[in-house]
């Protein structure tokens, strides 16, 4: 029974990690394209950017809804405490989502598209910013009482560390958005995003270096674990792998490859995620509440593995099928 008590929360930590990763990767390029649309001064190009997302933006966003639903069910206390503490970043993200979601359809209908262009671009930016603050705040710690309820202040989430994480996350989104556009577009539009991808690769790298350096310095509770085997070996390799991947990415951009930059970027995201997961584990709210303390009743976790876990391959399959159906370069869509 005791092993079950550890095993089930670990399972759910892994499943939620997978959902969050899929979300950050998929909605990452989605939001990245949205942020990039702010720099586009041409209505037709902006239309193409939005068309490249029109069939998938909602499915991508649904991974977050799924992650939140899973967190609610598997770690109810963490769900309440985290969202409670992050009231402002969460609502920043939500209002960003609202504006960008309606912009897809409203812009298509509108004669004067200016307002909805801004809604789409700024909405994407606000959503990414909110997520960055949220991630940064969770990593730098949330104040809770003994029962695990949030006892901090309204502005606790705003620290220089969360600002750093937010800025880096936005760079990462712009990077993956650029490489997505390199893959899905052609001609002048593709050229532009080879350039933005290069810039974003460098800025992401700088942000990542800062975060990597500052984590062991300021994240005291992690320090002991990080600087002792076996995690030490892992953390010794991650920076090297990271630099290797970024150099591969830059080379592929230099060679004007079309798909490779997107794939290298995904691998960079995977690596970052593994790093983050290892820092956070076994906490769900670092370094206050572990996944074992916050988890729902084991029977709930089992039911959820049956009802949700079993569907993961199915969900992955039909999402992938969608990408196959809409493969190829984006064209102005036949949509009336």
């Amino acid at each position, binding site marked *: 029974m005791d092993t079950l008590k550890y095993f089930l929360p670990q399972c759910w930590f892994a499943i939620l990690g997978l959902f969050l990763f899929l979300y950050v990767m998929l909605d990452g390029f989605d939001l990245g394209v949205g942020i990039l649309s702010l720099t586009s001064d041409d209505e037709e190009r902006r239309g193409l950017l939005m068309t490249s997302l029109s069939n998938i933006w909602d499915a991508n966003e649904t991974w977050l809804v*799924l992650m939140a639903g899973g967190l609610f069910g598997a770690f109810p206390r963490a769900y309440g405490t985290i*969202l409670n503490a992050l009231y402002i970043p*969460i609502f920043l993200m939500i209002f960003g*989502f609202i504006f960008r979601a309606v912009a897809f359809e409203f812009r298509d209908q509108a004669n004067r598209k200016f307002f909805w262009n801004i809604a789409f671009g700024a909405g994407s930016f606000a959503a990414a910013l909110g997520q960055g603050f949220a991630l940064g705040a969770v990593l730098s710690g949330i104040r809770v009482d003994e029962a695990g309820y949030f006892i901090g202040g309204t502005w606790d989430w705003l620290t220089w560390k969360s600002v750093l994480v937010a800025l880096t996350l936005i760079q990462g989104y712009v990077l993956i958005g650029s490489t997505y556009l390199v893959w899905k577009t052609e001609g002048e539009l593709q050229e532009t995003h080879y350039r933005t991808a290069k810039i974003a690769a460098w800025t992401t790298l700088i942000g990542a270096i800062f975060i990597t350096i500052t984590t062991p310095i300021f994240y005291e509770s992690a320090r002991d674990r990080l600087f002792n085997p076996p995690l030490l070996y892992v953390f010794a390799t991650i920076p090297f792998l990271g630099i290797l991947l970024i150099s591969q990415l830059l080379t592929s951009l230099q060679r004007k490859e079309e798909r490779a930059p997107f794939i290298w970027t995904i691998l960079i995201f995977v690596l970052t995620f593994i790093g983050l997961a290892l820092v956070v584990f076994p906490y769900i709210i670092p370094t206050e509440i572990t996944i074992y303390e916050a988890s729902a009743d084991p029977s709930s976790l089992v039911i959820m593995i049956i009802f949700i876990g079993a569907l993961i391959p199915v969900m992955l399959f039909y999402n992938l099928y969608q990408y196959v159906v809409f493969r190829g370069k984006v064209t102005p869509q036949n*949509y009336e």
Partner: protein
Amino acid sequence: MNFLSDTVVLSRMQFALTAMFHIIFPVLTTGMGIYLVVIEALWLKTRKSDYYHHARFWSKFYVLNFGVGVATGIPMEFQFGTNWAPFSDAVGNFFGSVIGFEASWAFMLEAAFLGIMLFGWERVNPAIHFLSTVLVAVGANLSTVWIITANSWMVTPAGGELVDGKFMVSDYFRAIANPSALVSVTHMFVATLETSLFVIGGISAWYILRQRNTEFFAKSLKVVLATLIAIAPFQIYMGHLSAEIAYRYQPAKLAAMEAQWETLPAGKPADWTLLAIPNNRTEKNDWELSIPGALGYILEFKPNLSEPVLGLKEWTPNNRPRLVGLIYYSFRIMIGIGFFLAAMAAISALQWMRGKLKNDNIAQQKWLMRAWVFSAPLGYIAVETGWIVRCNGRQPWTLYDRIRTSDSASHIPATNVLTSLICFATVYALLGVAYLYFGSRIVRKGPNLELPVPGVDLDRPAIDTTPAEFQPDDRPVEAQQ
């Protein structure tokens, strides 16, 4: 104005506002999803291009509603954590799991296949396209099933008990199949369908009145009518069953629905008030218009009550719903609309049988068509008022008889909630205006009957790989610029 500094009240207001605004959009997409399946099946069966153009025309409303539905749906999920953290913690074992089921079973299915349904007409073969339309409808309606199951469980909790303030589930299937789940899910499912069909019928009637594409819209009106004849009366029966569940499991809600302050004994006939002015302070109705002996017939189809109907005074004021007048009148508005819509279906069916709805004479049914246009928004009002009854009638509990609403709200500064509430009110007002504006533009523009029908007059390959600049631009003129 001291409620402005009360976090619980503000969080409730915010939840009510966001839920009432949100529900407008999924109501249409879930119901219309089924209609689109029927239309596409008709197209595949008859190969009449009209049905194809119907599918294309109505899916414009679908996608318009879907976008706003997603945008306003995300705040619903997150509010459980931001504003109702103690509730989330207490009921996470069951309620949280169900929210997770909804996302994985319903939202993902709907979202993933919606792209193919909207933009895939020329990319996949008709069978796959039809399958996508079916899966979108299934996904949308599964979300009704799961979310209403979760809400029913709040109304009639089952399958476990509270242990140290946390709900411990002993039997998941009993919790899912809680006493009110089946009736509530069916009631809401039919509500979404009925509302959507009256919207489709109302818009069709608008065109028929103006004699624009009369023949085309007579088709959709008849598809709608054929379904409504069956479901509109059925909905009244489902409503009756819902009231019986309140009678049995939530007597305080029933008492508020009927503004009944005194307990009515069993074995006797009882009066039913048609209208009343309930007064919370004096605990009686200041004025009422009642029908003698009617309540027994309404609740049990017989003159005498077999069980007593408890009056509101059986509970102390802090243990019963407070907004009696709101619940009482919302309930009556919902019922009135339910009967009116059933009558609309019946009268229209009668005219159809008398041969008055033929292509050449349907436009002469001016008053009937006007009544259809008038009915278009009524379903929404019935849905909103029904939910007011359901959720206000459950008060002062979030989990009925177990967790109080006042113990469910997050301890956050009231100013935070007030700020987010004001933001929601402003943004939603803007969205509402934009939605109506763009929706009415789609209506004014009308269907595009020139759209090439796949498999008939399509000369392009199924998957288009030609670069964008060599392609004909077949977007609407104003999008080309």
